[in-house]
C-alpha cells in the first residue's frame, strides 16, 4: 500500500499546512513517509510544490519519479497542469478550479481546465467559493484536503485530528472554520 502525491499551489496558499496534516496522519497510522518541500526564495509568490510519499514499506527517494505519482492535489488549476507529467497513467487529479492570478501572462482559464480534463480520473472543486462559505478564502487549502480525503489511504478521523492540532494555537474559531472547509471539500468531491 503506497500513495505518491504531488501537492501544488502558489507560495502563501498553505500547501505546507496540507502536508503537515497528511504527514502526521500517516505517522499515526504507522506508515512510512517522506515529504520534500520548497523553502526560501522560491516561496515568495512563486510556484510551490511538495512531493509527498506514504507507504507501508520503507520510502527511499524524497522525490517522486516522473510518471509515478498516484495523485496531484493542487490548490490552483494552472499549478496542477504544471505537474501533469508526474502523474501515472492511472493517477487521479484533485484540483481547485479557482485561478490565482499574480502574473501578467496567466493563460486562458478554459484552456487550463481543458488541460486538466484530459485526465480521466479527476475531481475539480470550486475551492474559492467553498472556502468563502466556510468563513475565509484562506481555507482553500483545507477545502482541497477535504476533496482529496476520500481518495487518500488515510482515515478521515486522523486527518481531522491534525487539522485541530494545526490550528489549535489560533483558537477554536479557526479550528472550526478549517474543519468546515474540510467538510465542504469532502462533500463536494463525493458528489463528484
Amino acid at each position: 500500500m503506497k500513495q505518491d502525491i504531488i501537492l501544488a499551489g502558489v507560495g502563501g496558499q498553505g500547501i505546507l499546512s496540507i502536508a503537515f496534516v497528511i504527514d502526521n496522519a500517516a505517522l499515526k497510522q504507522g506508515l512510512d513517509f517522506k515529504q520534500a518541500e520548497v523553502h526560501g526564495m522560491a516561496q515568495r509568490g512563486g510556484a510551490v510544490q511538495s512531493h509527498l510519499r506514504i507507504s507501508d514499506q520503507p520510502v527511499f527517494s524524497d522525490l517522486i519519479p516522473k510518471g509515478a505519482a498516484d495523485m496531484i492535489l493542487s490548490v490552483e488549476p494552472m499549478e496542477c497542469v504544471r505537474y501533469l507529467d508526474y502523474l501515472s497513467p492511472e493517477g487521479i487529479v484533485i484540483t481547485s478550479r479557482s485561478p490565482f492570478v499574480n502574473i501578467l501572462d496567466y493563460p486562458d482559464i478554459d484552456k487550463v481546465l481543458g488541460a486538466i480534463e484530459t485526465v480521466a480520473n479527476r475531481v475539480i472543486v470550486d475551492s474559492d467559493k467553498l472556502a468563502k462559505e466556510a468563513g475565509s478564502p484562506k481555507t482553500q487549502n483545507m477545502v482541497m484536503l477535504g476533496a482529496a480525503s476520500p481518495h487518500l489511504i488515510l482515515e478521515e478521523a486522523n486527518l481531522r485530528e491534525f487539522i485541530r492540532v494545526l490550528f489549535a494555537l489560533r483558537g477554536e474559531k479557526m479550528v472550526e472554520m478549517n474543519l468546515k472547509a474540510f467538510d465542504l471539500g469532502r462533500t463536494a468531491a463525493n458528489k463528484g
Partner: protein
Amino acid sequence: MKQEVLLGDEAVALGAVHAGLSGGYSYPGTPASEIMEYLIKASTRENKFVASWSVNEKVAYEEALGVSYAGKRALVSMKHVGLNVAADPFMNSAITGANGGLVVVVADDPGMHSSQNEQDSRYFAEFAKVFCFEPSNHQEAYDMTRESFELSEKLGIPVMIRMVTRLSHSRSRVQPRPPKQQNPLKYGVDTDWILLPVHARRRFKLLVDKQRDLISISNRSEFNSLQINPKNTILGIIASGIAANYVIENYTDGHEQPSFLKMTTYPIPEDLVKKLVVHVDTVLIVEEGYPFIEKNISGVFGVAGKNIHGKLTGHLPSTGELSPGIVRQGLGLDALPKREIADFPMAARPPQLCQGCSHADTYRALNEALESYSESNVFSDIGCYTLGALPPYNAIQSCVCMGASVSMAKGGAEAGVYPSVAVIGDSTFAHSGLTPLLAAAAANTNMTVFILDNSTVAMTGGQPTFLSGEKLAKVIEGIGVAKEHTRTILPLPKNHDKNVLIMKQELDYQGLSVVIAARECVQQARKIKRSKT
C-alpha cells in the same frame, strides 16, 4: 522515545541537542536556516544551551570554536556559500584541533533552488582534511550528528556534515535516543591553538598523520554498506548520500540490483571501493553535486581494465540536481510509462516581491531617479531585494556574494562609473557590507549606497538583524559618512516624488552618500500582528 516528524535540518538539530550540545551558532541561509530555528526553540526546553544567530558565518564559526576550546560541544551551521565566508576559521581549526566536539553542518544546494552556485562542500572537507558525513535520510541525519560529536572528540578535529536541499527540506520520521549530558567546562590553553609557524607546522603534521585513521574509520563505518551481487560482474554502483535513495528507488520494482556501495563518509572508504571495483567491469558513480568520488577514484589514468562512469563521462549530468528519473536513465533501465501531455501554454510563476513590499517602492523611485543619467551601474546584494532584478523593476545589475555590492560600487566608481550605486539590505550590510563602507568613507568615494532597512532577514523567513533603525544610522555616522549625505527615506507610494528628489540629490553629490530606505518587512509586520492577537 517517541518517533518525531522532522525536516532533515531538524533531525540534525535534534541529534546535536541529544549529543549534549552547549552552543549552536549560524547565519540564516537557505537550505540551512531550519537547523538554527529548531535549536533556538529547543534551547530553552531541555538541558538549556546557547543557540543564536550570528552576524555572519565566520563569526558563527569562531563562536563555536570558542565553545569547543572550552571543552564543550558546539555546532555551527550554514549554507554552502556560507562556508566560503567561514573558510578561514574552518581551515585553521582543523590544524588547532577541537577540544569539545565541534560539528560544522553545511547545506549544499544542487540545482540552485535558492543560491548563486552549487559548490560541493565535500571538497572543503577534503581541503581541510577533516572527516565528513553525508546522510541519505532523516534517521541518518540524526544518528550521524550524534556520531560526529563523538568522532570530533576522539580525533580532536572538527567534523563536517554535508546536507543537500532535498534532505534539509524533506520531512520524515526520526527515532530519537536518550539524550546525553553536556560536557563540563574546561579551562587551560596550550600551544596547540597558537598558530604561529612553529606550532602550526607541528600541528599540521599531526593532522596529516591522522589521515590514515580517518580512512580506516571510514572503511569500518556502520553508515556505509556494500552489497556484492555474485551473479552480476558487469555493473556495480557507488552512490553517496541521497543519491543512494534514487538508485534503490529504481530497483524496488523487482529489477535485480547490481552490486552496490552506499557511501556516506569521507575520506573515501578505500577498502570498500576496492572490493566493489575488483568484482565488476563497470562502476557507475552516482553523487549529488560535483564528481568528487568519481574524480578521486579515476584520477588521471583511470582504473586499469575497468570503466568508471559518472558525471565526467557524461553518463549523468554534470550540473543541476539528480532525480529518480535522471538516475534511472544513468542506470540504463527502461523509462517509466509516460502520460501524453497536451500542448499547453504554461506560464512561469517566478518568485516576486510581496504585495506592499518596501523594496518595490524603493526600486520604483530609484529607477526614476536614475532616468536622468545616460548610464549607471546598480550593484546589488543578496536578499529579497535581489528580486529587483526581475520585471517589472529590472533595477539591478549584480548579485555576487554577501556584502559585495558596497565593495563593487567602490571599485566601479574608482574605474570611472557614475553614478555608482550599491543596494544592500540591513542584515547583509551587518554581515559584510560594513567593512567596505569603512574604506569608502575613508576615501570619500563618489558613490551612493542604499541600505534597504526592513529590520529582518526576510528571504530566509524573518530572522532578527543586528543593525537596523537608529543603531544603523549611528554606525553610518560613526564610520565617517557625512551627516548631510546620510538620508533616511520612508519608501511608500505616497512619498514617491519626495523620495525620487532625495535620491537625485545624493546621486548628484560628488562623494560618498548613504540613503537608508527604512520600512518594516510586510511579512514580519503581519507575523507580529498575528502573534499579538
